[in-house]
């Protein structure tokens, strides 16, 4: 089998491919969990402090909104370099998979927070009013009604964010984090090894497909509209 394919993928070192795949998965998994952990509360806060919402605080809302916009407007490759001292302080290294995760999270969390805010805005105000009329506490309104009602939208946002993170990880090669994207750039592009390029891109495509399908499945499972 491998003898058959050997001439076709002459430059492909399958050990490298496996390592790069695992690096990509590690970066994606680690940063996605932290992005949701950071972006979800930020999105909820953005929503609740907005105009005519439960905790309307125009000044705080504008400040948060500005912070989110600033972080979202910095190109990821720049963020990766700018964050190096912070990353070093946070995880003890600015290199490798560990060094890539903080900039990935800081790059993706504001984006995810906006998607969460949008999903929360889709929740019927009447439903929230009904829950208020039942004498719910703010915490009960958020955890018992707002988030469950917005769950399909939040899951869809998580899917979009996960796929955005896959493309961000391609740039993580700059800090030596490796991954499939890095392999594609260094071997496929810079050394004209088209076969490596094809293999990595196909693997990335498969990863994106799996993420999208899993996300769609979860959304339809939790959607009862």
């Amino acid at each position, binding site marked *: 089998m491998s003898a058959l394919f050997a001439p076709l993928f002459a430059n492909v070192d399958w050990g490298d491919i496996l390592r790069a795949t695992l690096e990509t998965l590690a970066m994606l998994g680690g940063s996605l969990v932290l992005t949701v952990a950071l972006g979800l509360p930020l999105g909820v806060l953005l929503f609740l402090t907005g105009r005519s919402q439960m905790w309307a605080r125009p000044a705080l809302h504008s400040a948060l909104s500005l912070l989110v916009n600033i972080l979202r407007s910095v190109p990821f490759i720049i963020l990766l370099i700018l964050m190096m001292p912070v990353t070093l302080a946070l995880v003890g290294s600015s290199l490798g998979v560990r060094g890539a995760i903080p900039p990935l999270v800081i790059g993706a969390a504001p984006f995810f927070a906006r998607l969460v805010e949008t999903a929360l805005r889709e929740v*019927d105000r009447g*439903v929230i*009013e009904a829950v*208020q*009329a*039942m*004498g719910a506490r703010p915490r009960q309104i958020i955890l018992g009604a707002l988030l469950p009602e917005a769950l399909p939208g939040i899951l869809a946002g998580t899917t979009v964010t996960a796929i955005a993170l896959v493309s961000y990880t391609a740039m993580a090669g700059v800090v030596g984090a490796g991954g499939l994207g890095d392999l594609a750039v260094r071997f496929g592009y810079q050394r004209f090894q088209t076969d490596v390029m094809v293999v990595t891109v196909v693997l990335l495509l498969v990863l994106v497909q799996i993420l999208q399908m899993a996300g769609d499945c979860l959304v339809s499972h939790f959607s*009862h509209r």
Partner: protein
Amino acid sequence: MIDLAKTFDTGAGQHPAVRGVSLRIQPGEVFGVIGESGAGKSTLIRLINLLERPTSGQVLIDGEDAGALPPEGLRRLRRRVGMIFQHFNLLSSKTVAENVAFPLRLEGRLGPEAIKARVAQLLGRVGLTSHAGAYPAKLSGGQKQRVGIARALACEPTVLLCDEATSALDPETTRQVLELLAELNRELGLTVVLITHEMDVVRQVCDRVAVLEAGRVVESGDVVDVFLNAEHPVTRRMLGQDDEPPVAGMGRKVRLTYRGKAAHAPFLSRIAKETGVDFSLHSGRVAQIKGEPYGQLTLSLDGAQVDEALARFAAAGIRVQELTA
């Protein structure tokens, strides 16, 4: 008892939605607030459970000033006041049973087993036992509203607020939902406050009614009285009384209003025969208000003994109004 006294609500600033309204709602009655859209009905009903805060005035519930309550006290009050909505406002992410259990979970008084039993009892009461596991999206409008009612009753409230609760339903479903509300009022002694723009809703279930226009109460009282003696143009318009054709022809034009037993007596032909007056009928309606028959006829009378005929109508318990042609 609910007292709304001189409530001034300035919502967005310059245009108060409700002005100088003073209402007293008695325990166990079905109180209707009727008005055209934009009259301030929604604001008014939300003042009762303080979803809207009055900028001045008081909301007294059983003598307790709701506006002065601390947050925890307000939450306790809201559990005593159930509310149902025009668009049902059910949680789409929860099943019928979970929706009904929701206020009980918020309250945190009952354990899981007791909540289950209470939910089963409530769903039985509204006839939805077989839909316990369904999601609201799978239900019809009438079924959704019955889930809303079961949910509103979960914490055993003494007051039920109905915000245009039947406005999104077809006439037959409206009739069934109103029937259910009337039953709950009778059986549980539940005080029901409902707002609507449909006179038929008021006529079917309400004991008393207030007519709201531009944030003010323009007419209020027992439903029968307000219906039969409507003075204000808005009330008359909502009753469809302003389109009576102008009466031409001979004789004196009068309006006869009667209710109760008089509605079944053949007084018109009897008195006409006795006094020899001729009459011609111009318009009229004969119907029921909360089970009580009533009638209102506009006619003109001609003959020598018209005064005598009018006196006999009055003697038979019929209200006589002479109309100027």
